[in-house]
């Protein structure tokens, strides 16, 4: 048996090397982007590419010099406020669909998921015309509302799957001890689901921060978010690729961090809580 066991260990190590190579290939375009953002202007558009160079931060400086702040603030506002609103709406709803369910909870649950499956192109025209009509086009609060509806189904399904993990015995013990509803929510349920709540919020943040279709169609100058800033960065002037890469690195960073932190819960959010 020892022979096969050590044989398997060797095989595991070999497959581990393969996995490392695959990981490096997949992450390589991102590394390439990072390298480009640090190159001297003369090294950016060479062929063959330059691999060794003296790094410079001038492209990051250029990004900050090109009026990025309003875009960042808009993205931050849209992400933070819509995520807050989603959590405030989704958590009680998930509770009413799991621990103290309403009568037709399956219907409601599937109604929510079906709104997520609607292609957004099929609703954009009325929303566009209405926002123009009432003067809410190019307004960050319009984006907050739309992003909330975009993430709400996902958050409800995800929160529900976390709430269902609260053991019944714990809840019943609380009831026996005479804990009221509010008290048991605050003392028992919230502490147990708070990691889930954090993961849900992070995933909503990721989707909002990266959203492009609604942003490009419903904002002009006031409410434009980070992805729109990137598009504006493609200009004729000089080797723009390094500046563009620097901007792309900067703007991807918040979501990269959020995603790395939430990576254990990522699959659960992406599958609406169906897969743990």
């Amino acid at each position, binding site marked *: 048996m020892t022979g096969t066991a050590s044989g398997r260990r060797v095989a595991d190590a070999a497959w581990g090397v393969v996995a490392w190579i695959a990981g490096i290939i997949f992450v390589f375009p991102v590394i390439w982007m990072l390298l480009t953002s640090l190159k001297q202007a003369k090294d950016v558009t060479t062929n063959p590419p330059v691999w060794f160079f003296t790094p410079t931060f001038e492209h990051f400086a250029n990004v900050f010099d090109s009026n990025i702040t309003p875009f960042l603030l808009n993205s931050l506002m849209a992400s933070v406020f819509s995520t807050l609103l989603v959590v405030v709406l989704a958590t009680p709803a998930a509770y009413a669909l799991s621990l103290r369910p309403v009568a037709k909870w399956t219907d409601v649950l599937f109604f929510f998921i079906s709104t997520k499956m609607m292609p957004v192109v099929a609703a954009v*025209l009325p929303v566009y015309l209405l926002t123009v009509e009432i003067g809410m086009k190019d307004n960050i609060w319009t984006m907050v509302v739309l992003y909330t509806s975009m993430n709400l189904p996902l958050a409800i399904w995800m929160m529900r799957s976390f709430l269902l993990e609260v053991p019944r015995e714990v809840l019943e013990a609380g009831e026996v001890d005479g804990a009221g509803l509010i008290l048991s929510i605050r003392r028992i349920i919230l502490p147990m689901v708070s990691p889930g709540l954090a993961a849900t919020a992070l995933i909503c943040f990721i989707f909002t921060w990266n959203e492009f279709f609604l942003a490009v169609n419903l904002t002009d100058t006031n409410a434009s978010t980070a992805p729109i800033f990137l598009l504006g960065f493609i200009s004729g002037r000089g080797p723009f690729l390094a500046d563009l890469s620097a901007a792309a690195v900067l703007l991807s960073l918040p979501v990269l961090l959020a995603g790395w932190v939430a990576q254990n819960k990522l699959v659960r959010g992406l599958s609406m809580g169906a897969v743990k």
Partner: protein
Amino acid sequence: MTDVITRADEQTRTPPPVSRKGGARDRWVRRAPLLPALVFAIIVTQVPFLVTVYFSTLSWNALRPGSKKFVGLDNYVTVLTDDRMRSALVNTVILTAGAVIFSMILGLALAVLLDRKFLGRSIVRTMLITPFLIMPVAAALLWKHGIYNPDYGLINGIFGGSTAWATSYPKTAIIATLVWQWTPFMMLILLAGLQSQSNDVLEAARMDGANAWRIFTRMTLPHLRQYLELGALLGSIYLVNTFDAIFTITQGGPGTATTNLPYQIYQTIFSKYEYGEASAAGVVVVILTIIVATFALRVISGLFKVEEGR
């Protein structure tokens, strides 16, 4: 969207039974936490869709004032017989299917690799999910200018030649970018599937002398089936809506080679101002999505049932 989607199965994971005692007041106490979210979702998602259905029955070009009149199903006839729309439909199917199938195959291979123990496994996993987290517009710009560019792109930089990848092979270029971004998604779902497989059973099969390939095809793949289905269906639902990559890399071109339905509708609204026609196309997309989504819901229900059974 619509509540027309028929539920695949009443039996998802069962929460505690709804108590029948307690009168109207108890029912409203139960409903109260749900209502804000429900009302919000109906107003923000259902109402615009119903308005789109109404628009789809109008002949309405915003550039011709007074052109707004009822034409019944004419727009649908236009949409379904129009060459541009039909080519957009074909492109949507090719781009979605291509991206889903290739990201699924790669995702499966990577999930199998990550399911083993090796040094630095969590670092490799972090590297592998990174493409999914990059802002899609940033990823599209990176591929267009940093990788596909004929003069200084990474591909020609490493392998030589002067191919303009994004214009010579537009569909492949779009699919490759999408596959790079979506493989991590498939990998995560399939990895979760692999890790839910019972180790004891696998160990027993190994003891019985079954080789690795046989175990994989006879036991692992059947076990993974519903995870594969879930990945394919959720992936399709997200990827049917692909807009960022097309807008950024090819603008639907060259010609209409990469114009999919969302991009076509976008152009019909914002460049041609044919509001009626665009709305009809939007409704058609919803109907297509409902067909895919119905299967997706069945798979999700199935997974919940499995969880319950364990």
